[in-house]
């Protein structure tokens, strides 16, 4: 037993606080918007130049001029504001965005994050990820605990080129929640049906008490 994608997204949504401006990455992080707790008002930032991102449009109402950072058609809200890319990253770099939730290929026990390239294989680019992890106040990674070969993605040190050095605050995986602390990672909670021993065994990184 462990959390599925939606349960991971729902757990990540518990990180949100009322009044926050938040940037959600592509993949599982996008699902977080489906689980925003009642009574919590958050404004979603899309780094291509929008605050106040709405839902996907109803079929037939797509607008080519209205997309999110994943290039998907979306909608606006009554409080939406649009701006250019330099302004958008000004608010990211300037620490005005409270939290970014994003995916990762690898995370290390010192908070290093790798999610933008696999040398010789996958070269897509970092997009806005380097700016986000360097600029926002809190970085939460949501990802599967292991890769498709079953190897831990929560490592002593990253093997892939970094997106940011010592930038991650919290890791939410299908097996549980871990915080980056002095000396390694601290277990915050285990996923449903996962024991602490199982979480430790699945983690290459140092776990401290």
């Amino acid at each position, binding site marked *: 037993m462990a959390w599925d994608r939606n349960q991971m997204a729902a757990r990540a949504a518990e990180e949100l606080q009322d009044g926050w401006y938040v940037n959600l990455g592509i993949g599982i992080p996008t699902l977080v918007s489906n689980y925003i707790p009642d009574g919590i008002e958050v404004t979603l930032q*899309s*780094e*291509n*130049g*929008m605050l106040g991102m709405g*839902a*996907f*449009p*109803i*079929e*037939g*109402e*797509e*607008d*080519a*001029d*209205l*997309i*999110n950072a*994943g*290039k*998907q*058609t*979306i909608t*606006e809200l009554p409080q939406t504001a*649009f*701006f*250019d*890319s*330099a302004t*958008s*990253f*000004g608010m*990211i*770099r300037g620490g005005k965005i409270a939290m970014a939730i994003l995916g990762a290929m690898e995370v290390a026990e010192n908070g*290093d994050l790798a999610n933008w390239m696999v040398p010789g294989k996958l*070269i*897509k*680019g*970092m*997009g*806005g*990820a*380097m*700016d986000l992890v*360097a*600029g926002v106040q809190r970085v939460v990674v949501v990802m599967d605990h292991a890769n498709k070969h079953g190897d831990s993605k929560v490592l002593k040190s990253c093997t892939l*080129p*970094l*997106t*940011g*050095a*010592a930038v991650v605050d919290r890791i939410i995986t299908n097996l549980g929640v871990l915080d980056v602390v002095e000396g390694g990672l601290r277990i915050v909670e285990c996923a449903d049906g996962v024991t602490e021993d199982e979480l430790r065994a699945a983690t290459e990184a140092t776990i401290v008490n």
Partner: protein
Amino acid sequence: MKKVYGSAAEALDGLLTDDMLIAAGGFGLCGIPELLLGAIKESGVKGLTFASNNAGVDDFGIGILLQTKQVKKMISSYVGENAEFMRQYLAGELEVEFNPQGTLAERMRAGGAGIPGFYTKTGVGTQIAEGKEHKDFDGQTYIMERGIVADLAIVKAWKADPTGNLVFRKTARNFNPPAAMCGKVCVVEVEEIVPTGSLDPDSIHLPGVYVHRIIQGDHEKRIEQRTTRKKESV
């Protein structure tokens, strides 16, 4: 001075040279100067370096200039949607300088604002920082990034008046204002040229001082990821 031209080819006349640096607006396929890119393809100019967040898809956007091998180098943050790009890059035919997206936007803005370099936390401790000046401010380490001044900027806006004041629409604004600012010459394509005086002066997104030539035309405005929801799932 007349800024309005009859076609994309006319507006680019005399501005294109081999091996030039062009800053292009757009994010994905949203807000890209599709008419000007088409005219650049027709001109046959080659050895181009593009500062542009993305490289389009195979048959739209900057992708059409990759097919004709007119592009030597891309300065971009994300190029994942383009198979021909990947092929040329992995074969060593195309040079790529990856810039973090916000760094690229700020490099354009700074270049246009007379700022030759600036310090940012973005990329510290990554391969982006290699070979760049590091400097500590208030106990934090930053790297220096250079402003970009492009030989030519090509951008897409929603509306212009004949003096070049521009209004953009929704998220199609994206890189267009910073790209426009950093060009020694800026050519703009719009959906509609409206009479001088009809745009609210308080609602101009980019003032005409940055704009040298304007064309009006029909835009395909292709959607890259058409995503919808069912009516009842609201």
